[in-house]
């Protein structure tokens, strides 16, 4: 009898918390207001629950916490879509492949910026990919244990230096140097951020590739070594082929990082919203998707805001696809070795 009543009480309490919380969130998201009453009901409910049914309340709260990442991602996707989609709706083909971005004539297309992002990312990958994988092989296979424990955090630190500091250093040192070496009259060439971004994307590639190399069971390589091959032959013939999908994942993730990097690019590019001519001229000033948004969103109004939101949506979508692909490849690799 008493038991039943307490179960019902639990149910009522739980339901009231959940409903008030959902109501609160809905009102906050849709009506843009902070409903203090629903918020208080939820808080008091949780408090009561904590006193009377600590275990269940804890579990429920933990579950709620675990949905947070997904909820934020979903909110970003929805709101960017709402604000960014109109730019695509008008004339999607022109928006993505036209060649004019002109605030004064109200003509917006992202063609040059997409191309600029591609150039910068490609250049960065040329630097980051071989060096990043090389570093992963060295740290994972050749370095002795003590050196490894020094090198790993040191490489991580490379990713920790704020991107605005990279941008500032690059602007002062690299942009000037390139301008002087090649006797170019203007600053902000594509090549400068490419080089800096290469070093910024490198730690991502190294750490993921090193994980992939580490995940290959040691006995496979030991078996090869027992046959009398050298260390490198064992790595080349056994470890790397098995880790290749993980290394691919690392490269994809690195490309995503380079593509989404904002401040360094914004500070080092010349903000010229036109295609370079010839198309592959990396010594011409330009603009990328991220630097376009960062440099223009502050002053933009009207259709320009829509177009910038469209650019943000495009960026978000591309990086989302890249990182999901990378993650799927990684988990497939892990599953394979856990079974085998």
């Amino acid at each position: 009898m008493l038991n039943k009543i307490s179960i019902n009480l639990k149910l009522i309490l739980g339901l009231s918390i959940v409903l008030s919380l959902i109501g609160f969130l809905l009102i906050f998201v849709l009506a843009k207001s902070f409903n203090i009453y629903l918020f208080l009901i939820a808080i008091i409910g949780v408090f009561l629950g904590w006193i009377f049914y600590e275990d269940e309340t804890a579990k429920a709260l933990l579950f709620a916490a675990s949905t947070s990442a997904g909820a934020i991602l979903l909110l970003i996707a929805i709101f960017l879509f709402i604000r960014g989609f109109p730019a695509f709706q008008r004339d999607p083909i022109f928006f993505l492949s036209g060649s004019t971005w002109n605030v004064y004539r109200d003509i917006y297309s992202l063609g040059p910026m997409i191309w600029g992002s591609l150039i910068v990312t490609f250049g960065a990958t040329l630097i980051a990919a071989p060096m990043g994988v090389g570093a992963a092989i060295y740290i994972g296979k050749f370095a002795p244990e003590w050196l490894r424990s020094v090198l790993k955090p040191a490489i991580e630190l490379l990713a920790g230096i704020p991107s605005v500091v990279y941008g500032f250093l690059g602007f002062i040192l690299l942009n000037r140097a390139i301008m002087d070496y090649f006797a170019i009259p203007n600053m902000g060439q594509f090549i400068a951020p490419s080089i800096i971004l290469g070093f910024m994307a490198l730690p991502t590639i190294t750490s993921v590739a090193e994980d992939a190399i580490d995940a290959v069971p040691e006995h496979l390589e030991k078996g090869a070594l027992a046959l009398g091959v050298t260390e490198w032959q064992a790595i080349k013939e056994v470890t790397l082929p098995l880790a290749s999908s993980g290394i691919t994942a690392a490269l994809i993730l690195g490309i995503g990082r380079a593509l989404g990097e904002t401040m360094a690019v914004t500070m080092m590019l010349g903000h010229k919203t036109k295609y370079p001519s010839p198309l592959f001229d990396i010594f011409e000033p330009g603009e990328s998707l991220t630097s376009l948004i960062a440099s223009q969103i502050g002053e933009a109004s009207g259709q320009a805001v829509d177009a910038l939101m469209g650019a943000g949506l495009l960026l978000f979508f591309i990086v989302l696809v890249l990182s999901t692909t990378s993650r799927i490849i990684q988990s497939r690799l892990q599953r394979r070795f856990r079974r085998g």
Partner: protein
Amino acid sequence: MRTDFGLLLKRFAFSFWFILALVSVGVIVTLILQPESVPDGALRTGGTILMVAAFATFALNFFTTELQPQLGQYILSLLFLFLAGVVLLFFPRQGLVLPNFEGDITPSLVTLSLFFIVAIGSGWVGFLLVKESPALNSQAAVKYFTALSVLVPLAVLAFFIAYTVSEGSAVISWRFISQRSDLLRGTVGIYPAIMGTFWLIIGATLFAVPIGVGAAVFLTEYARRKWIKQLVGITADCLWSTPSIVFGLFGYIFLVPRITGHSTLLAGQIILAAMLLPLTIATSTEALMSVPDEFRSGSLALGSSKWWTIRTVVLPSAIPSIVTGVLLGIGRIAGETAPIMLIAVMSHTSAPNFFSLEAPYFHIGPLFREIDALPYRLYSIYKAGVGGSIQEAWGTAMVLIALVLLFYGLGITVRSYFRRKRGW
């Protein structure tokens, strides 16, 4: 006998190359020290000779070895080609120099020593690499080049930090970090920016850590189905790799209109928390999974409930790793500019002041006002045109780097301390 002959030829090729490298270094040194004494034409000729030598080395290696082609030697030859190309490309224009900021061009020791190291180093390694068997040859080459690909980024990192410190240390003083910039009084300082970044970090941590750790506890202790774990893993990954400017845009269209309609500290804290969250989830999950199952069964066997076990046994033993992860994460978000640029900052605002000596002692007002932050300070100096306040910019950059290094150092110290201490 035949292999010995091939080895001899290879040795010859490499000595040839090594001598040429020395010569080229000599030319470069002369050029930097006395640019007028070397005519332009000589450089072109020198570059061409280098190029021919590279091809010769390449060809010699290719034709003389009936052994397998060797990766290391190809790469070395290519490196040599690259060197020659650099000489050809750069020198006709002017001496190879790094400009300092004032714009006058002075020969730089850095460039000089870089070339010296590359030329001498690779020549020397060329000798070292020639071993008795091709397998050992390529083993040595790969070891060298992978080590180089660790060294080069670290050298760049060290150079950047050293350069910033050398420029910034002239500016850093107690006044610089304890005052605000004031044109009228002629003071230069970044106190408001330091405090702004401090409160951003505090807020972001307070939001992100409970939620992130909670999510990790649910995933490791409660979630039964695998797909839930995978789903949360994927979403956290996606959130982690979402470009920072997209976070800024999201804050701009979602948070700002829902808080006050203008930039606020609170919006910045929430967005940075959203960026810190995935890292917290990932590191906490890892930390909790590394707690041995015996701990859990031991506690459960004593009759404690699941939640009690988590609270008193699992979480305490995972805390050091969680702290490490959070500290490293804070090091990352402390320098984020793009997300707060649109939603939290305004140049030259005063430091947020939460505490007072009078009646309420504590105000939440500053949460709903703009702040200044270190990374934004640096960016706004850049945007205003670096010329005037370059000193302030270097000082800010140095404080930022020091902050990041501090958090990294703390994180790594905590990790190594507890790793030594714990018994499992």
